[in-house]
């Protein structure tokens, strides 16, 4: 195993916005290609920050994050867009462009890459088929259910055939049935070799997955188990789910 190059490595990473606001403290872990990692913890534990550091939306205050053993903070600003095409992102609020159809939302990710129109018209229907939305290509996000919107978002994340999918509470706004569908899709994607990082505080999902679990508490890793269970305890701060509806996007 030691010969395998980690896809992501956190090396004593801390992040603080001010002295009082320490979001992450001394976070160290290694993720190998093809792993399925659940990142659990109550709201404010630092899950989203860990993810943001991976897709370079934030940079560490101390320490370093490596992607394929290359320090992410060393990536030239100009090259960041290209770097981000290696990482598919999925969010609780779907982050779809409201004025574009399902097809156009996915196509946009290819358009920015300068792909030929023919190629786009070949690949987008394929990926929509994979996420089970072959018949909804022409619909706008507002015409789709939450679960369907999340599947569009997942299809968009997949279109660049990324090495890593980062999912930040992807089921936070979904009903149990849609939640199961999304998790099933993530597992399928993972079975093709894509590394998945799933941040969630849904105990059922994590317990059923029976995969690696890292638990964060107040910005620190408190446990890292190969086939873990959800152990995050409700802390002094009440665990209030974020109220984000697709209409706010």
């Amino acid at each position, binding site marked *: 195993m030691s010969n395998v190059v980690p896809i992501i490595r956190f090396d004593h990473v801390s992040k603080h916005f001010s002295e009082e606001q320490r979001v992450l403290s001394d976070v160290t872990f290694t993720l190998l290609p093809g792993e399925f990692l659940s990142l659990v913890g109550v709201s404010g534990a630092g899950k989203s920050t860990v993810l943001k550091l991976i897709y370079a939306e934030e940079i560490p205050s101390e320490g370093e994050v490596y992607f394929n053993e290359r320090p992410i903070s060393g990536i030239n600003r100009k090259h960041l*867009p290209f770097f981000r095409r290696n990482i598919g*992102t999925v969010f609780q609020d779907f982050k779809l462009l409201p004025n574009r159809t399902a097809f156009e939302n996915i196509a946009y*990710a290819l358009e*920015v890459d300068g792909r030929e129109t023919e190629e786009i018209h070949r690949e987008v229907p394929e990926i929509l088929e994979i996420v089970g939305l072959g018949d909804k290509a022409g619909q706008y996000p507002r015409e789709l259910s939450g679960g369907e919107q999340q599947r569009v978002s997942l299809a968009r994340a997949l279109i660049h055939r990324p090495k890593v999918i980062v999912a930040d509470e992807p089921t936070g706004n979904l009903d149990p049935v849609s939640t199961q569908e999304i998790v099933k899709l993530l597992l399928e994607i993972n079975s093709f070799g894509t590394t998945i990082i799933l941040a969630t505080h849904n105990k059922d999902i994590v317990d059923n997955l029976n995969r690696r679990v890292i638990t964060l508490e107040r910005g620190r890793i408190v446990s890292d188990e190969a086939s873990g269970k959800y152990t995050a305890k409700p802390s002094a701060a009440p665990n209030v789910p974020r109220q984000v509806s697709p209409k706010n996007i």
Partner: protein
Amino acid sequence: MKTLKLWRTFHEGMTNVRRNGWLSFATVAILSLSLFIIGLSSFVAYSTHLVLTNIKDKVNVTISFNQNVSEERIMEIKGTLEKSTREVSSVEYIPREQALAEFLAQNGNDESIRKALEEIGENPLFSSLVVKATDPRYYEVIAEAVQSSSFTDDISRINYAKNKKIFERIQLINRTATTAGLTLGSIFIAVALIITFYTMYITIHSHKQEFEIMRLVGASNLYMKMPFIFEGLFYGVVSSIIASVFLLTVSRSLGPITEGAMPLGGSTASLFLHHFGIIFIGLLALGIILTTLSASLAIRRYLKI
């Protein structure tokens, strides 16, 4: 790949223009008006300047000498005048024979004039010196200097008022057009800049959340910026075309009034047409600079990585 991306961002920019509706219309309207006013005032300043140079040649002080004054004496006076190089630019001697020849060339066909000349029996005209000043304001000084000089007795008459009134009036128009053009032009440029800026700002603001999404799927800053640059470019191009068409209409309608006033004998319309290329390019450049500048300024604060 580059052209494909350019085309896509262009298409996106045009979609923005369409979605903005009235805001796009207002931007184009105010921008056209600004460009029109700038164009008109510089055109008026330029054409009055041309009229001035045209008339300048026709303004002079003509000193006519008594018939008994010898040519040597006149040449002596000419020499004296030519010494005041600061005020005098040229002195031309016109002998009475030449004056008559020129007069006949101009009016020779007129029967009554010919008869009158025959009746007089000799050349009734005077030899004269035509003095041109380095600057129009010196004519009065020159005329006064000649009148109070030692050779005032030899002079039959001094005519310096010829064309002077017209000259002064046009000079006033020229000065007014230049000042008004500069003042009004800069005010309108400022207003146009602000309005374009805010149009772009509002468009960009409505796309604010989309930028985050676009970044996440790997769009480069330039790719997100280009639609707005194209949007600005569109406003600039359309406005400069509208302003040029208005200018053309105005100069056409002024055409009959200004016929012959221009050095080449044409009117403002022909002058405008003659310079249409440069006028259009100037307005186009100004429009494009204004709008793309506004667009880049407006987008700057939204695009961080």
